[in-house]
C-alpha cells in the first residue's frame, strides 16, 4: 500500500471496513434470523422475478423467493465450508509439516518435493481434481477444498519447525531427556501458529471462492440450498431479464474475500515488522 499520511489513513479505513464486513458476514452465518424475518425456502408465485425495491433489497428469483434472505442464509454454507475446511487443513498441515521438519533428511525431502509440486497449482484446480475423484456432493466439496488448502500449511509448519530445530533448542531439550514429541507440542507448534494464522486468514478467502466455484459448476449442494455459488448458477440464465439474481451473491463473495485478504495482509505486515 502507498506510504504517506493519506496512504496510512486510507489503509486504516480500509482495514476497519474489511474487519467490519467480516464480522457482519460471520453474524449472518451464525444468526441469519437477525437480518431477515423471511424463510429462504419460502416460495411465492405472485412475486416471481421482482427487481430490487424497498421491501426486498436484492429482488426475488424465479419462484418468488427473496434473494436477500437467500444470500444471508447462504453465508452459513459458504463461511462454514471456508472456515471448516481451512481449520481442518490447518490441523493436518501442522501435524504433517512438524513431522516432516523433525524427520530424517531423506523422508523430508521426498515429502517436500511432493508438496512443492502441489503448491505449484492453484487451489481451485486441485479441488477440482479432488472432486473428480470423490464425486459431486456438498460434503465432498468441503473435503476437496480442504485437501487443496493443506499443502501451503504444511510448508509453513515445516519451515518453522526447521527454524526451531536449527536453533539448537531441540538438541538441548533432548539432551535433558525431554521426549521429542513433547518438544514438538510444547515449543514448535506454538511458534507455527502465528504465521499460520496469518496465512489462514487469507486462505479462508481462497477456500470460499473455490467452494463457491465448485458449487457453481453443479458439483456441490443441490437446489434449493441457498449456497452462494449455487445462487450464482441459478441466476446465470436470467442475466438478460433479472440480473439481480446472480449479481448480489457474487458481490457478497467478492467482498468477503477482499476483506479476508485485507485483514490477512495487515496481520502479515504486522508480523513481519516484529520479526
Amino acid at each position, binding site marked *: 500500500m502507498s506510504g504517506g499520511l493519506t496512504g496510512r489513513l486510507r489503509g486504516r479505513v480500509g482495514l476497519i471496513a474489511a474487519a467490519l464486513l467480516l464480522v457482519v458476514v460471520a453474524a449472518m452465518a451464525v444468526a441469519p434470523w437477525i437480518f431477515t424475518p423471511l424463510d429462504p*425456502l*419460502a*416460495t411465492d*408465485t405472485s412475486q*416471481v*422475478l421482482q427487481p430490487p425495491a424497498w421491501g426486498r433489497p436484492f429482488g426475488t428469483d*424465479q*419462484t*418468488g423467493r427473496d434473494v436477500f434472505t437467500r444470500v444471508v442464509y447462504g453465508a452459513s454454507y459458504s463461511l462454514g465450508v471456508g472456515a471448516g475446511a481451512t481449520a481442518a487443513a490447518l490441523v493436518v498441515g501442522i501435524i504433517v509439516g512438524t513431522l516432516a521438519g523433525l524427520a530424517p533428511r531423506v523422508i523430508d525431502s521426498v515429502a517436500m518435493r511432493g508438496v512443492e509440486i502441489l503448491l505449484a497449482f492453484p487451489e481451485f484446480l486441485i479441488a477440482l481434481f479432488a472432486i473428480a475423484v470423490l*464425486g*459431486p*456432493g456438498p460434503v465432498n466439496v468441503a473435503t476437496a477444498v480442504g485437501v487443496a488448502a493443506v499443502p501451503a500449511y504444511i510448508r509453513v509448519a515445516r519451515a518453522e519447525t526447521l527454524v526451531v530445530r536449527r536453533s539448537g533448542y531441540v538438541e538441548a531439550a533432548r539432551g535433558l531427556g525431554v521426549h521429542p514429541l513433547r518438544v514438538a507440542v510444547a515449543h514448535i507448534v506454538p511458534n507455527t501458529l502465528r504465521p499460520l494464522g496469518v496465512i489462514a486468514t487469507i486462505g479462508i478467502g481462497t477456500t470460499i471462492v473455490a467452494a463457491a466455484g465448485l458449487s457453481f459448476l*453443479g458439483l456441490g449442494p*443441490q*437446489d*434449493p440450498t441457498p449456497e452462494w455459488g449455487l445462487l450464482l448458477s*441459478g441466476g*446465470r*440464465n*436470467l*442475466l*438478460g*431479464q*433479472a440480473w439481480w439474481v446472480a449479481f448480489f451473491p457474487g458481490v457478497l463473495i467478492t467482498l468477503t474475500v477482499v476483506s479476508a485478504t485485507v485483514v490477512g495482509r495487515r496481520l502479515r505486515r504486522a508480523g513481519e515488522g516484529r520479526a
Partner: protein
Amino acid sequence: MFSRPGSFRIAGSLALVVSAALVLAGCSASAGTGEKVEGGTISFGVDVDPVGHLDVHSSQLDINAILQRPVFDSLVSQKADGTIVPWLATKWQVSDDQLQYTFTLRDDVTFSDGEKFDAAAVKANFDHIVDPATESAQASSLIGGEYYAGTEVIDPTTVRVSFSQPYAPFLANAASVQLGFYSPKVLAEHASELKAGGPGISVGSGPFILSKYTPGSELVYTKNPDYNWAPEGATAQGPATIDELDVKILPESSVRTSALTSGQVDVIGDTAPSSLSQIGDNFTVTSTESPGVPYSLYLNVTRPVFSDVTVRKAFAGGFDLDAAVKAVFNDSYQRAYSILGPTTPDSYDAALEKSASFDADAANDALDAAGWSERDSDGYRTKDGKRLSARWISYTPVNEDNANLANLIQDGLKKIGFEVVHDQLEPGAYLDAYLAGDYDLTDWGFLSADADVLRSHLGTGGYQNASHLSDPEIDATLASAVATTDGSTRAELYTKLQQWNAENAVIVPLYVPEYILASSDKVSGIEVDIHGWPLFSGASLTK
C-alpha cells in the same frame, strides 16, 4: 422415448405472453417472405451433443433422433396428425390375425455409399436392433419387444415382419428414425463404431449425408444429390434444395436464443419458454405439445405413505399446480390433466380438463379423516407419532425449471402439513434407490408417439412402472389396447385408463412439455413431425 432433462428447458421469467400454437397438422414452421433460393446453408442450433450415442438403433436420446433424421429413412412416414403414409415401402398388408406385416419396397433406393436398399437390408437392420450386442433399449422395444418374432426376406422387394401377438404400435413405430436403415456394409464392417458415429459410419439413404462431426461443437450435413424417394405427399420428391445443413451445439438456452437473434444461426430447437421474450416478431415460433406421458410424478403405492388412495388424492389436489406451472413457465407450457398428452394419437381424454384440481380444504379434510390429524412442532402432520413425509428422488443433473417447480410443490404441500423431501441423487445412487423401491415418488416425462407407452408405466413389472402398480384389470386393459389396431377401440380403452388414474392418483401429471422451434425469415419450408421436431428435406433459404 426417455426424455433426458435436457429436453425440457430452463427458467421461466416475466416474459411477454407467447401463445403456444398447437400444431396438429404438418405445417410450415417458417414463412419467409422472399423468394426461394437454390442451394446455400441453413444453420441449426441445438442444446445437446449426442456424442457417444449416435447409433439410432440403440440411442434413447431425443437429440439423436432429431439429428439423424436427415440421414436415415424408414419404411413408412407418420404425418404430424398421426396418419401413416408410404416411404421406402410402397404398400403393406397386415394379415387377418395381425401377426404378419408384409411390406412391398421401392426398388430405386440406394444408400449414400452405393449399397442397394432391399429386403435383405431391412432384415439386416432389424436383426441388428434385436441383437443383444447392440444394447438397444429403445429401438428394440419400439419394434415390438418380446412380441417381435423376426423378419423374413420373401424376395428383393418384399419383406415380412412377424409377431407372436398383435402389436398395434408397430406401424407408427416403423416411421421412427430408431427403426431407420443403415447401409448393410456399415453394419457388417463398422458395427462397433456406430455409437461413436461420424462420416462414413452413420451412413443411410436419406436426403442428407453426414460429412463432418466435431463432438461438442458441430455436425455438418451435405445434400445427397441422388435422393429421389421422399415420403408420399412430401413437398419435393427429389434432392433437398439446400446444399448444406450446419448443426451447432449450444447448450445454454439464452446462448441459442442470442445466436438466433444475432443471425449466427437460422433455426434453433428446444427453445426455453423464458427465452421467447427475446425473440422478435420477424421470427417464426412453432410450439408442439409432446405426445406420450407428460412430465409427471409417480407415486410408489407399495410404500406406507402412498398405499392409501385417500392420501394420494389429497397429495394430488393439495397444492396449486396451475399457479406453480404458470410461475415457472409463464404461459408457454400448459399444466397437464391426464397421464397422456393431448396430441397422443387415438387416446387423449379431453373430458379430464374439466375435472376439479386444487382444493386445499378438501385435502386437509381428507388427511384428517385418514388419521393424519395431529401436527408436530414444524407444522407437519403426524399419525401415531410418525410424520407424514414422502421421499422424492431425482437424478442429477436436475433441470432448473423442474427444480423450481419441485420447490413450489414442496412448499405448497408444506402448507397442508405434508412433508416432501427431495433427494437429488447421482445416477448411480439413484439407480440403486429406484431399483430397490426405496422412494415414495419420482419424476419424469416420457415422449412417445403411441399411447402404448402406458404399458411400461402401469403394467405389472413394466420397467417404467415406478409406481409399482400391479392390477390385473389394468394389465388386461393395457393388453387389449396393444392388440387392436382399431383407433376408436384403442381410444376407448385408453380413456378408461386415464379416468382410472384420475380416480386413483397413481400418477400425478404436472405439465405438458412442448418442443419449441424458432426460425428467422431467412428460411422457409421447415416442416415438423408429430414430436415437433424439424424436417429439413423441404427447407430452403429465402432472399
